[in-house]
């Protein structure tokens, strides 16, 4: 079931090799990492941990003053005697400010990026490059505008758009520039909840259609759960740990954001078309499946899905109740129990190869005598799904590395 996804990984860019050391006033950044060549890598950490500085150096806005190497495969942006300016790097950079060009309307802003798109290796190439004729550029523009939900805004001026609309235009414009690397620095932090959701949906749609690697700076666990394939956690200018998002998120010993906001990511395949009562069934493995509300998403049978299960929505029972309103009650075994502040415990549960988290009280742990290795039932109340992107699921099982 994974073959089609692995094909995509095969055509992707080489990994981005980064080794940067820089000092300014009382801050020392020291990062050495090989960033994944596909998917969204969330760079997560508290403010002041050096996330944005790192991104600025990758974009070429800041030059590290001690030592630096940035290379995409054999293509050195920095180091090996080379220093490429921002406009030569083929990155597209979006911050919380949309930074649209104020005297151009939305369509002209998009065309500005298209005309400057170099010969690049990402998937946009087939539908829009600098060499493509104007008519095909217009088609590419139209397609991208639809994906980001801005097709009705094309003739408007940036100043007439809301913050969320501007941000969708900015990300669409970045995508159309055909970057080898997309850099997003807290693109949602200046937006209200509704706009945030719109931009998130657009990013999910874009990401599932394209192979362009993306580094996404955020301090929101919610955004990490929505978008991240990989997590790089930073603290005080250094990388604290990194790994696959579902691995790191499901390790209860690791503190990632507020426990109440945290949860697991699971991947599965849609078993049935949405039933008359609006429920969809997701097959996680040969023996495990989950029922969830499909909402308004356009799903089809066999589609790969990514589901978020918040720890607060999962409870644990020792036997299978037959009188509960909770539909999902699945056999699981306890992988780990980790006490956290406030008399609570984060419990990692194995459900045949995938891991979910349950946030319970210490008292419940004692009452049910929960221990590592216990066989229990996980009652799962809420599941949020979105159409999963073309990520090689093989990596989910293969990459067990969590570097501390």
């Amino acid at each position, binding site marked *: 079931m994974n073959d089609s996804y692995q094909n995509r990984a095969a055509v992707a860019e080489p990994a981005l090799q980064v080794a940067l050391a820089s000092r300014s006033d009382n801050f020392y950044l020291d990062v050495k990492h090989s960033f994944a060549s596909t998917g969204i890598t969330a760079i997560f950490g508290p403010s002041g941990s050096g996330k944005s500085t790192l991104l600025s150096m990758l*974009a*070429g*806005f800041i030059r590290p003053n001690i030592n630096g190497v940035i290379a995409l495969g054999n293509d050195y942006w920095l180091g090996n005697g080379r220093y490429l*300016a*921002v*406009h030569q*790097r*083929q*990155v*597209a*950079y*979006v*911050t919380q*400010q949309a*930074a*649209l*060009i*104020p*005297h151009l309307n939305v369509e002209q802003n998009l065309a*500005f*990026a298209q005309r*400057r*798109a*170099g010969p690049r290796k990402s998937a946009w190439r087939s539908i829009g490059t600098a060499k493509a004729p104007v008519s095909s550029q217009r088609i590419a523009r139209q397609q991208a505008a639809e994906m980001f939900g801005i097709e009705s805004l094309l003739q408007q001026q940036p*100043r007439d758009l809301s913050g969320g609309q501007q941000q969708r235009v*900015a990300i669409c*414009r*970045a995508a159309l*520039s055909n*970057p080898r690397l997309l*850099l997003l620095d807290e693109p949602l932090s200046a937006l209200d909840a509704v706009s945030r959701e719109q931009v998130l949906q657009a990013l999910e749609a874009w990401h599932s259609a394209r192979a362009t690697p993306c580094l996404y700076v955020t301090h929101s666990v919610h955004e990490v759960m929505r978008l991240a394939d990989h997590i790089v956690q930073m603290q005080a200018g250094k990388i604290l740990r990194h790994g696959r998002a579902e691995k790191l998120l499901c390790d209860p010993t690791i503190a990632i954001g507020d426990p109440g906001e945290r949860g697991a990511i699971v991947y599965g395949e849609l078993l049935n078309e949405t039933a008359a009562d609006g429920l969809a069934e997701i097959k996680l493995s040969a023996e495990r499946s989950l029922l969830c509300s499909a909402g308004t998403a356009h799903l089809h049978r066999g589609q790969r899905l990514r589901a978020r299960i918040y720890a607060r929505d999962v409870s644990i029972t020792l036997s299978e109740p037959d009188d509960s309103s909770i539909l999902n009650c699945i056999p699981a075994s306890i992988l780990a129990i980790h006490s956290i502040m406030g008399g609570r415990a984060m419990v990692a549960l194995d459900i045949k190869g995938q891991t979910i988290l349950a946030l319970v009280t210490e008292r419940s742990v004692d009452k049910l005598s929960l221990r590592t290795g216990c066989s229990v039932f996980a009652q799962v109340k809420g599941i949020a799904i979105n159409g999963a992107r073309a990520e090689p699921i093989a990596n989910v099982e293969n990459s067990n590395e969590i570097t501390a």
Partner: protein
Amino acid sequence: MSSNDWLALWLTAKLATVSTLALMAIGIPLAWWLARSQFRGKAIIEALVALPIVLPPTVIGFYLLIAFAPDTAMAKAWQAAFGRPLAFSFDGLVLGSIIYSLPFVVQPLQSRFEGISRATLLSAASLGAGPMDRFFNIVLPLSKRALLAAAALGFCHTVGEFGIVLMIGGSIPGQTQVLSIALFDHVESMNFRSAHILAMLLLLFSFISLLILYAKGAKTARVVQRGEPFDE
């Protein structure tokens, strides 16, 4: 108006046009550099550019007169390059006008350039736009009004120049006798009728120019007065 007065009018228009073109050619890159540079000695350049606003024009004229004397290196180089002397010549007036009107061109441009969002330019760079591309396709189109204001102020200020011309020009008809000088000569020789005509001409020209500039938009006027950034 006498034929000499017509000649003075023509000379004034020519001087202001040539000076304005030169001022824009020098002022635009200088203003951009001043707006973006982190250079420590920048304040010295800014103060030098602004000097003509506060200095009596005769002071500038005095030093230029000394610099233009035929035995200076500058005058010799000019003579060698163009085959004409600098002192009491049209060329000398153009040089004097450039120095005298430079702040009126540089300041509105600099304050506009400083108002252009750095984030806009950085994100355009990340989309593949190089420095020249950004300057010509983003900075200049966003500065249309300030460019107009700078050119108009440079032109009008050159037309209104007197002290420097008096020091370095002499009063050679067709060469260095501009309107303001011709007016001065008329008054000196008690020829008040002609003086009235020239004075009224200059007054109307200046008023109408400023009227057009301010009516073009309160925004332009703001830039000129207080140097506030604005978006067009």
